[in-house]
């Protein structure tokens, strides 16, 4: 099932025929900021879900003395850097595309800005595989989902966050496809929304890292 809150796919103007030689001349007025509002609301929802899980963890830790502390695999800190880097490259390419297409709203000048988005996708995939490797390391230590409540919450938090990151990757690849094919400002609005969602993924991971490091 795709990420629970895949970033909202803003309305595509009627699926244009495959890009003919001359890009479509009509430039539609910029759509309202619905993609941006949608992402902000999705962020609110995701925060509420993780807040509920955090309170469940706090209550569960107090409920019984069986909370077994364990050392977080060091790989997680490397993954954190990878995720922050991916946010960086995405922000760089978003600003570059915005700056470049202010002059000429056609397709061509925008292409060099896409490299950053590709890099973000790669780093995102690297982060997700890093998380899975961290799970393997934990399993090697004998800490599975049901071994202890602390490991259970670790797996639930990282799984839900990973699921949302995968959703973000799907959203980014969708926006990437539209950036290459559709002229006009609409894809940029979508890119700004997708970037906001991606930065939130980074911030959420930092929050998770803090509470996991302190409580688990």
């Amino acid at each position, binding site marked *: 099932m795709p990420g*629970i*809150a895949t970033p*909202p*796919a*803003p*309305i595509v*103007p*009627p699926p244009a025929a495959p890009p003919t030689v001359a890009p479509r001349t009509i430039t*539609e*007025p*910029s*759509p*309202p*900021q*619905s993609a941006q*509002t*949608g992402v902000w*609301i*999705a962020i*609110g*929802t*995701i925060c*509420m*879900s993780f807040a*509920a*899980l955090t309170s*469940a963890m706090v*209550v*569960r830790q107090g*409920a*019984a*003395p*069986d909370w077994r502390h364990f050392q977080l695999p060091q790989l997680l800190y490397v993954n954190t850097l990878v995720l922050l880097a991916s946010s960086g490259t995405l922000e760089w390419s978003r600003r570059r595309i915005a700056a470049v297409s202010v002059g000429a709203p056609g397709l061509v000048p925008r292409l060099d800005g896409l490299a950053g988005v590709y890099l973000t996708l790669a780093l995102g995939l690297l982060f997700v595989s890093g998380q899975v490797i961290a799970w393997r390391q934990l399993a090697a230590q004998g800490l599975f*989902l*049901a071994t202890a*409540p602390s490991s*259970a919450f670790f797996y*639930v938090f990282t799984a*839900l966050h990973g699921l949302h990151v995968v959703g973000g990757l799907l959203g980014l690849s969708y926006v990437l496809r539209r950036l290459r094919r559709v002229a006009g400002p609409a894809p940029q609005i979508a890119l700004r929304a997708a970037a906001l969602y991606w930065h939130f993924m980074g911030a959420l991971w930092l929050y998770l890292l803090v509470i996991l490091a302190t409580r688990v």
Partner: protein
Amino acid sequence: MSQPTTVAAAHHHAPPQGFLRKHVFSLDHKVIGKQYLDLALVAVCTGMVLSWLMRFHLAWPETPIPGLGTLSPSGAAGGVITPEYYLALMTMHGTIMVFFVLTTAPFAGFGNYFLPIQVGAEDMAFPRINMTSFWVTLVAFLVLISAFVVGDGPPLSGWTAYAPLSAVGKDAGPGQGVGQTLWAVSITLFCVAQLLGALNFITTTLDLRTKGMSLARMPYSTWAWFITSVIGLIAFAVLMPACILLILDRVAGTSFFIPAGLVISDRLQPHAGGSPLLWQHLFWFFGHPEVYIAILPGFGIISHILPVFARKPLLGPRVLIACLVSIAFLSYTVWGHHMFLSGMNPFSATLFSVPTLIITIPATIVTLLWIGTIYGAKLRFTTPALFCLGFVSVFVSGGISGFFLAQPSIDTYLHGTYFVVGHFHFVMGVAAMFGIFAATYFWAPKMFGRMMSETLGKWHFWLTFIGVYCVFMPMHYLGLAGNVRRYSAFTDDYLKPLIPLHRFITVAALCTGAAQLIFLFNLIRTRLRGPKAPDNPWEATSLEWSTTSPPPFDNFGGRPPVVQHGPNEYGTRGAAGDYVMQASPQSAGPA
């Protein structure tokens, strides 16, 4: 609130071509709205049949029900309902009604259909996500219903699914194996669907309002759907992780909600350290806002329809919106009143009883606004108007019994008795249903382009209005006598003298149920062969009445309306009578 800079024209998309795109996998919010309403119709029929079986079993436990033995041989061999099957019927009745009827119909169904039109938009902000949320809701409903035919029957831990009864697995009794897991998966899917739905509602209300449609000029049903989606966003975002943890407890062997040392069916359970109260807290943090998700759209619908038939403006619309917002906020501070006696620290009972009693104030104000609107009105007693009046009366009865349950000292006696059943059925089972009936009769001309029969409508109203009072008011008397709820048979000595009252309730419930067939027949006949409906049969002012019945694909035929007035212009001298349409250019002079 970002005022939309440009007209929402850019948001158009080409009308669908193929049958599939037009009717099944449609992106049009009107088709999705009708799909939600049809799902809710199937769900309410299922839920009602379950309640008939339950009521019949309570009144005459040993009389076999013909045909039930063949339908469910394990649950009701020979037509006699077994105790576990009764609890399974109760659990499915509660879950279907709360989730798939009272959240789906007034909020997702009518909201999806009318919110975009009422704000002057062509469609929801994200049509693809809107379509996804319906299909995920349908899958959730099918997953829930499959519990009837799979494993050892549907779950029996109630719609509240308290742990460890719901978390331990098949040791806890029949239905707690596969059936309970299906329940948890179904509710998780339902949460995902509602989150996507709420996301759509809020973005559309904030971003896609047409020119001149400021927030102050939005109709009150739109306000209600907007506030309900904000509540839903937070409530379902908490229930989803709770259900995920419950599923992990059931299948992955974790111990979030199951403590150590439990011996169930002579087996020591392999769990340790969990807290059953954690589930109750997470569930009711969602649970009480859920009951407001069920009733607030009803508030909006009644506040939208009542002025139309009173032919005068709603009294104090700003106060109404302030009350809706304060109810929405307070609904997150009261969940503990479900848990006064649950083993939670007794001091927090006092803590939760204060906001619970305070929330009665905005509810009282809203009721008084409706009664105040009726004062000095020129009431037209059409069927939707009667259901509005019925809503006000029934909501008052239900709300008043809330006074008793809000106080921990009285809840000591009344908790877990039929008094509670009477209370929540009056407020949710009847008031919210009257909201749905009023909305159906009021908007049928617009949705189907055909008028519903008034005579059948009135028969349906009178039988239902008197019927529900005969069914649910006696439940308060049973509660005062200490009749415990969720019992599949009354074998206690002090309950035996109450059985005749149960028989009266059963007869009343079967008659009221039969009366709903009138509504079903009326609805189906209208959709197939009802008389053609004009664009504005009720002479109302809001935007949905300034377009054709049923509205074209993009709601306003390419000419998005420019709004000049609020929705409350009744009783003033207007071009076409004593009202001024929201989008009419002419100024609204005094009457």
